[in-house]
């Protein structure tokens, strides 16, 4: 999942203009905008066939790829 997320963010959200690491803060300096966050959530929901409640889409859970993966590990059983 980690690699899938990195690939999605780089190719779909950053249009292959920039590469990121799993530790990189996704939200500073406008790297990903609000529409990007919505698309990212949609991508995860589609891939894992699950629903992510809005209350979980927070800085703590979606700050970088690593935090997204650990959130999914602990909260979404299907992973």
């Amino acid at each position, binding site marked *: 999942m980690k690699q899938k997320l990195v690939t999605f963010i780089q190719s779909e959200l950053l*249009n292959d203009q920039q590469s990121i690491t799993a530790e990189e803060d996704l939200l500073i300096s406008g790297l990903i905008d609000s529409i990007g966050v919505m698309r990212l959530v949609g991508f995860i929901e589609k891939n894992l066939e699950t629903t992510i409640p809005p209350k*979980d889409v927070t800085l703590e859970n*979606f700050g970088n790829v690593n935090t997204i993966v650990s959130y999914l590990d602990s909260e979404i059983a299907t992973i």
Partner: protein
Amino acid sequence: MLNPLLHTNLSASADRYPENVAFRFAETELKYSELDRRTNQLARQLQQCNVEKGDRVGIYLDRSLETAVAVYGILKAGAAYVPIDPLSPVSRIGTILESCDISCIVSAPSKLAFMMRSAESFPSLKYVLGCSPVDKSDFTDPERIQFISWSEIFNSDDSPHCATGIKSDDLAYIMFTSGSTGSPKGIMHTHDSGHAYARITVDTYSISPSDRVGNHAPLHFDISTLGYLAVPLAGATTIIIPEPHTRMPASMTKLAQDEKFTIWYSVPFALIQVLTRGVLDERDLSSLRWILYGGDPFSPRQIRELMDYWPQAQFANLYGPAEVNQCTLYLVPDSLKGTEESIPIGDVWAETEALIVDTNNTPVEIDEVGELLIHTPTMMKGYWNRSDLNSRCFYQRPSDTKIFFRTGDLASRDHVNLMHYHGRMDRLVKVRGNRVELDEVEAAILTHNEVEEAAAYILDSGTEHERLELALLLDAKSDDKEESFRHYVGERLPKYAVPDQIVFLDQFPRTTSGKIDRRKLTELRVQNLQIDKVQG
């Protein structure tokens, strides 16, 4: 008595409420006394960098406490501040620096790498304040730019300091916005117009020292003048919402709850996000007393839903282009059903006069649509170095020589004296609250030698999915992909004006005169998208 200056408002609040918090950001804050002292230090430093009264100084900062220090430090030095969108491409920043002859920029350590990389594109730049490289050996010309760090500035003399001879009609700030020909235009505000806005705002919303105002907009966006100019006049607190929170509605509403916002001001898009994904059922936002929105129309149904969450708050639609700050106000009544067609822009606020005129500048009848003209003390002085625009954008009424700004917006007035908005006369649009000239987007891509024709337009306007799309007709030889065109536009336009989607067409729908039929094109695209959705 002399007219007040914006920075004397800050010093007055520092005298009256030295222990009140002026600005908060994340877990940090600046009290009025601290902000007053730090801006003394910055003003002194700017003068040592040869900044003189009447000069322009750039602010190149992300949301942070330093933005407040920069605004008031620059004003105390007698200069005008010029906020620069940190997401702008280098070429656009270069254009702004050059047109304003900016030799000095206030920035931060996080921007150091950018400054080092881009310095060669900014030939007029001599001083960068707020960051300092350890090693300048990468520079081809290490002596040209001098760097001075915040720690150096904040260790200097902090006694009161202010340039002499600043007059209230001197420039205070210039805000750059989209220009239809492809170069950004600078809206010039003076201490007089900025202070009039601050004063009328504080009166209108009864802002008191105990208020806590959530500042959602970045400094280069005119909505930020409430948090940066009006709140300090009242001695209240501005909470600068960090960038990541603006992307995460659930985190943003948590911040609003923890910080006990009393006043919220943003574009509707931010409130739509809060409504749909801000988990309002789990948040206590009973501290909110004003919900102010502006910059875009807002659907009555969504306002109604928000009003049901926050029945204690007064909702208000604020209208006014950046050229006049704010000029009308509509207090949304509790009786709003949500099924109304639209929300009025209301009536003029204090000290302001509105005219709705036809093409001969004759006032139109009740319920007739015409161009809205505004006379107000909060009006700009004009566009920076654009005598061509300045000769067209004002109207002087012959009967009393009063000067009105031509908004370019279409409006009507109904029988109970409320005004209604009917769109633009030109092709200026709002994309999620940001002003974008569609002509500028098209002009930017038409410089690409493989593009033959282009049309930019908005889809799903007024919804959470509102987006800017660009349709291209390419040279037959072109085999470039969407990414390369997006990259090309991204190097020329601010991020919010870069199309969300680029599509390639074999032909455009045309009007009888052969021009691109943009209305038809938009309709076709909406239908296509629906087909895509069904198939996907």
